[in-house]
Structure formats: C-alpha cells, structure tokens
C-alpha cells in the first residue's frame, strides 16, 4: 500500500529522529504551541463560562460570541496576524489557535454549568451555601465531565490546527506537511499527518485519564 510505504520511508529515516527537524524536537514544538494556546483559551473561556453558566446571564451574548469565534477562519486569521503584526514569532499563530479553542471551552463550560440538575443547586442554596461555594462545590464537580469534554474538543482542534503554524515558518509537526508539500516528498506529508493524528488521539487519552482522576465516582457513576 502506498500510504504504508510512505510511512515506512518516513519513520525509518534516521534523519527524522534527531536534530532540529527530528520528530522529538518537532513534537516538543507542537506540544508547546498547543499547550500555550489551550492554556490561554482556558484562562479566557473557563472563568467567563463558569460565571455566565452560574448566573445564567449572558447566554445570548455568549452564543453570539462563540458563533463569531467559530466563524473566524483559522488559516485566514493566521495570515492576517502575520501581515499585521509583521513578525514571525509565535504570537501570530497563537491568536487563531486561541480563537479556535475559546469557543468550545466557553460554550461547553456555560452549558455544562447550566445543565447541572437544578435540584442539588437549589438544595445547596437553601442550606445556606455562598454563591461561590455553590459554583465550586456543587456545580463544577457535577459539570466537570462536560467541561473536560469542552477542553478536550478544544485541545483536539488546537493540536490538529497547530499544523498551519508551519505556514508562517514555525515548527511543529506541520513542518513535515508544509515542507513535504513544497518539496513533493509525500512520505513527509503522510508521516506528519500520522504524527498529528496520533498526538490528537493521545490528547483524547490524556483527557480520559484526567477525567478518571478528578471526576467524582458519584458523577462518573462507576462507568
């Protein structure tokens, strides 16, 4: 098979395993871009989503914002930021990645908090919990699986989209794809694609593990 042949070519090439263009270095770069983008997006999306979900306010503004954020073309934004900021650092790449990740985090967090069974929340308020206690002791623990789901979905998209950073001369696995396209070495393209997909799947696994660790068995229901 064609693809398998390419994969073999790519992964058995010793040059792809060390140095600046080696897989370990590109992996670190890719992880770095993804993690920073996700962290910024979470720092924006989680507090707003928690607050709006808890108060039930701003739902419309939020969904409008999310629609807008989703509508922004990542690649276009990348190019636009490159020409506007006139530099080649990570900033132009971070903006589209953050814009991409904020929407799912924000909306899922909001919806997750909103969808918490109102009965325990009512009970918690009725027994005199402060608003913050209600949020962090009742709503968040119950909404955690959904919130993690939003983060996971954002993380997958970021990992997958971070490939386009290579278009503006950054590193990461996208390097193999862009360079492979330019020099017509398909082994590199296929290898890069498989690495990115693998990383995305590893991300799913990571979030599954986090879920096992932090979600109460009472919420997981032993499944």
């Amino acid at each position, binding site marked *: 098979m*064609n693809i398998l042949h390419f994969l073999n070519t790519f992964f058995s090439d010793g040059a792809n395993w060390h140095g600046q263009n080696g897989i370990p270095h590109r992996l670190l770069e890719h992880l770095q871009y993804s993690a920073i983008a996700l962290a910024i997006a979470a720092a924006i999306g989680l507090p707003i989503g928690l607050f709006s979900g808890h108060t039930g306010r701003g739902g419309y503004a939020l969904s409008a914002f999310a629609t807008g954020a989703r509508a922004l073309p990542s690649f276009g934004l990348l190019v636009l930021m490159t020409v506007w900021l*006139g*530099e080649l650092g990570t900033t132009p790449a971070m903006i589209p990645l953050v814009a991409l990740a904020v929407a799912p985090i924000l909306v899922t967090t909001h919806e997750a908090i909103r969808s918490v069974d109102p009965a325990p929340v009512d009970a918690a308020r009725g027994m005199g919990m402060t608003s913050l206690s209600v949020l962090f002791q009742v709503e968040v623990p119950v909404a955690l699986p959904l919130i993690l789901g939003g983060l996971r979905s954002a993380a997958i998209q970021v990992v997958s989209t971070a490939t386009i950073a290579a278009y503006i*001369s950054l590193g990461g696995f996208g390097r193999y794809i862009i*360079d492979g*396209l330019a020099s017509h070495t398909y082994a590199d393209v296929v290898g890069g694609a498989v690495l990115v997909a693998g990383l995305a799947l590893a991300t799913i696994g990571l979030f599954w593990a986090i879920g096992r660790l932090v979600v109460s068995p009472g919420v997981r229901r032993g499944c």
Partner: protein
Amino acid sequence: MNSQRKNTWSSPRNVRLAAVVVAAVTAAPLLASCSSSSGSKDPLAAPKAKAGTVVVGSNNFPESILIGDIYGEALKAKGIKVSYKPNIGTRETTYGMLKNGSVTVLPEYNGALLAYLDPKAAPTTADATASAITAKLDPKLTLLNPAPAEDKDSVTVNASTAAKYHLTADSTIADLAKYGGQITFGGSPEFQKRQQGLVGLKSEYGLTPKSYKALDVGGPLTEAALKNDNVQAADIFSTDVTIAQAKMVTLKDPKNLFGFENVVPLVSKTGLPQNGVDALNAVSAKLTTQALLDMNAQVQNDKKDPLAVAKAWLSSAGLG
C-alpha cells in the same frame, strides 16, 4: 401491522443488510484510493485538459504568475483558446502536472529546472544548460527559446548583517560561509532539500547556516524575516524590488550555483500548436530582465494587476 413486519430491523436478513451498508460506506473511499494509487506510478492523476484548450500554469510566486499571464495573452492574441491555472505551487508539483497533461505551458527558469532535473549538472553556458535540460527532460515535454530576462535565486543578507560582517556588493557567498555558524538562513521550504539550495550552498561554498527557517518563495515572509533580522541571510529573487528598498546586499555567486536563470517556456509537445510555439518564442525574444523588473515593480509597488501589466507590456511590445 402484521407481526412479520414487526421486527424488520433485527431479523438476520436485515442484520446482513446493515452490515453491507456499513461495509460499503466505509470501504468505498478506501477502494477508490487503492485503485488510483496502484494504477499509476505518478500520483498526480488529474483530469486532462480539454482538447484544443491550452492550459497555462504558473508557480506560486508573482513573477511566475505574471509571465504566465504574458504567455497566455500572447497565445490568445493568436486565436488560441487559453485557460489559466495560476499559482499552483512549487516546481515539484507543477512539473508533475505538465507531465500528466493537466498543464500545457509553464514559465520556467532554465537553471532552476536543470537543478531540479539533475542536481549534479554544472553547466557553464546557457546553451549547455539548455542541452543538459533537454537530456533529462520528460520526453513528452520540451523547452522553447529562452528569453534574455533572468531572475535568479540569490543569497541576500540584510543591511545589519552586511554591516556586521563587512559584506558588500562585491562579496561572495564564500565570504558569508565563514560566519555560517552564526546566521539563520531563510528561504522557501523546498530550498532546504534542493541542489540550488542548502545542498548546493554547502557543497559549493561550504556554507552551513546555524539554522534554517522555512518561509515562502521569496515572498513577504522572507522579506519580513530579513527586515526583522529573524534571519540574517535568505534566498530571494534577484528581481525582487525590496532588495534595493531595504538596502540588502546580494552576494555574488561565482560558482554559478544559481546558474543561468533565463525565463523559458516549458511546454507539452503535443498540447501546443505551432502558432502557439511561434507566439511564445516571439515573447521570449523581447522579454528582458529590465522589462521583468519594470513589470514586477508595477505589480509589487503600484499594486497593478499582473494580467493588466502583462497585457500592457504585450501591446507595447507589439505582441498583444
């Protein structure tokens, strides 16, 4: 409802049916991809151009698009049906499309093409270049007459680097090689693996930069990288209007690594009628480096549309 129809979907017959549906849906793309990949050695199996229409392609940088427009309009002036496929990508891609017939005419640069076809060739004259290319060229393709216009890849350093290492217009790439361990080199992604690229720079001049930054084909990323000192030296087209603007210094290439870079139409033997060949040769006869520089400036500086610039030049040259 009679009882026989009650469990339509769980009867064994329908389990099979379901399995078939799923199998078919998932297998179809796989089958499709297998058949097309095993069928042809060359994967670029795009549909052939419509008979009678000349497809003018171009690579993904403005000058190539501009020359493509010139070729196309010149052919149209001879009453030939033309369709454009501009801005395709790199030579690695466009050459394949010429071979499989999805592109008929492509503006090329003879030295670069040769370096692609035969990285080891080192011709010293334009004619030797042409014959070397012809020897390696796909039998379905041919080169028409080269134009006097030249546009080379060049190793260009930015103003601060030039000052730092005392590089002037008289310096050579070898002079930069001494400082290779201190510079980051920029260029297109494909430059890294080309003979007319890092490979040749190392073998001919011993230049091994500290690191390489993959940018674009002598485009805005490269220019910006040079200006911001993200890279200290870069591959940039010798006809690029920003070299002069930003007081960059282009280093001499005494070993002709970037060889003879005359603009030349690369065409499919069967796709272009004789009057088309004549028309393109007429264009090449009049296309000078100065004309190219002027037109590039109109596109880049005056923001004129390349097609309009091409038409204007053709009519001024009496070809349009």
